């Protein structure tokens, strides 16, 4: 099925504006996607009609809010094909999901001398929590190196993997380069030595089909705002046996069964990990984002984005001074680049002046930038609402900017 992109664009009010006197071209989708009307309306409707605290209230509004909130959990279960709704924990985002696992799984299962494996492609959220855990526990963090195209070296991964490996935490798709990692193989090899696997799906979940049962990963984390949903919300999927074995994350309301000053017993999953009043409105609106994606179909979204990426890569390659960064064979729709002789900040500011929003800098992946000996890159990332015409304007602007230093 070919998507009707103009119709889709019509559902995103934010796209219909001028920036610096030029029509906005939003190519910073890897940072966050824009929100369709259905999501915006769900937010407004919740506060207008249903606002109420969930899971406790005895009144109609509380009941309505609770049921709608839990419907999103069901939608997320289906979105990831988890076995049970109890395996879906709402978090603040990918970062909190990783921190939750680092604190609770880490507290219980990581001892001195144990090893945790991550890769050179990770963003800071999938580096720092493990560094903190390793420092606390006397465990060792090992890094899978990558090649010049930005692909994980699987042979090196096999060498790092030993009986001491307790956890492999790996990004599904790189936010800085777009590389899609062979996670099926990583998961299966890690399991052979008895290690658990966390997949960081922040960048992949909007584009790739996710089936946590087929993947057999132990944890999967993602953010709502990169899938057309609200900010400040994410999901941690964990296998039931893992979540049950892990201690609670934060103490407070909702996560308890019974509290006395002598002893507290904890609630069942998923509530054990959802202390306090949750982000109710955003959770409710997230369901609309999932429906939006499901209706379009990930395969269709992917096909459109892939065609934009291929078109952009080809057109930009002909510009003198254009240097692509990250040329993995399998990629999501992320195009990182440099212009010879120019700092990424300058390129970003000049693109912004012509109404084009891109990300510049290290993309919160400083060790990855160090690997390529770069301070940063310019990153254009495409979403379902972007068009070929927008790519043409990007190419035109990049070409004009490149000419300043590459005559």
């Amino acid at each position, binding site marked *: 099925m070919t998507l009707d992109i103009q119709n889709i664009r019509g559902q995103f009010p934010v796209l219909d504006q001028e920036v*610096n006197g030029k029509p906005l071209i939003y190519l910073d989708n890897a940072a966050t996607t824009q929100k369709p009307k259905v999501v915006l309306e769900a937010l407004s409707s919740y506060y207008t009609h249903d606002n109420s605290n969930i899971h406790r209230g005895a009144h109609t509004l509380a009941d309505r809010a609770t049921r709608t909130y839990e419907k999103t959990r069901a939608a997320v279960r289906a979105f990831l094909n988890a076995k049970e709704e109890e395996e879906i924990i709402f978090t603040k985002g990918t970062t909190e999901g990783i921190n939750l696992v680092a604190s609770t799984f880490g507290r219980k299962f990581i001892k001195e001398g144990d090893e945790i494996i991550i890769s050179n492609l990770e963003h800071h959220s999938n580096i720092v929590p493990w560094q903190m855990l390793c420092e606390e526990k006397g465990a060792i963090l090992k890094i899978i190196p990558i090649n010049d195209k930005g692909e994980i070296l699987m042979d090196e991964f096999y060498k790092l993997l030993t009986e001491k490996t307790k956890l492999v935490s790996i990004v599904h798709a790189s936010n800085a380069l777009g590389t899609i990692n062979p996670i099926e193989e990583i998961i299966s090899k890690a399991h052979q030595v008895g290690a658990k696997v966390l997949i960081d799906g922040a960048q992949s979940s909007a584009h790739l089909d996710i089936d946590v049962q087929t993947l057999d990963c132990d944890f999967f984390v993602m953010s709502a705002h990169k899938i057309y949903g609200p900010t400040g919300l994410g999901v941690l999927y964990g296998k039931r046996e893992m979540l049950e074995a892990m201690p609670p994350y934060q103490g407070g309301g909702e996560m308890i069964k019974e509290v006395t000053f002598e002893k507290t017993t904890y609630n069942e999953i998923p509530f054990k990990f959802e202390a306090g009043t949750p982000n109710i409105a955003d959770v409710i609106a997230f369901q609309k984002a999932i429906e939006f994606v499901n209706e379009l179909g990930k395969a269709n979204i992917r096909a459109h984005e892939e065609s934009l990426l291929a078109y952009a890569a080809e057109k930009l390659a002909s510009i003198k001074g254009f240097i692509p960064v990250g040329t993995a064979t399998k990629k999501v729709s992320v195009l990182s680049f440099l212009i010879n002789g*120019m700092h990424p900040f300058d390129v970003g500011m*000049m693109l912004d002046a012509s109404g084009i929003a891109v990300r510049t800098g290290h993309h919160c992946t400083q060790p990855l930038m160090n690997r390529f000996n770069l301070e940063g890159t310019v990153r254009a990332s495409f979403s379902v609402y972007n068009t070929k015409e927008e790519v043409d304007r990007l190419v035109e602007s990049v070409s004009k900017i490149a000419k300043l230093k590459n005559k």
Partner: protein
Amino acid sequence: MTDIKQVQEEIIDEFTILEGDRESTIFYIMELGNKLSNYPEEARLDENLIKGCQSKVWLTTEEKSGKVIFKADSNTDITKGLISLLIRVLSERSPKEIIDADLYFIEKIGMGNILGSQRSNGLAAMIKQMKLYALAYQSKLNV
């Protein structure tokens, strides 16, 4: 030689021609940056970096017959362009002139608006550092 106020007026006139068009303004600033290239290689040291800038900015000074001469460089052309404007206004002035300088041209040419908050902070850090150098020379000259 023209005073600080006159140089600022000249700059404001130059930018007026660009009619506030963001694209032309940024391209113009970059061109100015490209022309700033007399920074000595041996002074590209970490100790000469200005703290508080997102991009790298090196700044050094020397004093010649009571005037402060600034030299600066950056790893980004836009920042270099901004520095070239500051140097045009503040270099080869007496310490007192630099300390007392009211740099109203920055606001007049709409720079705050164009730079955004991050880079505006960087610009403020550059000015602060230039004034600190002037202050140091002043106390030295007064001894």
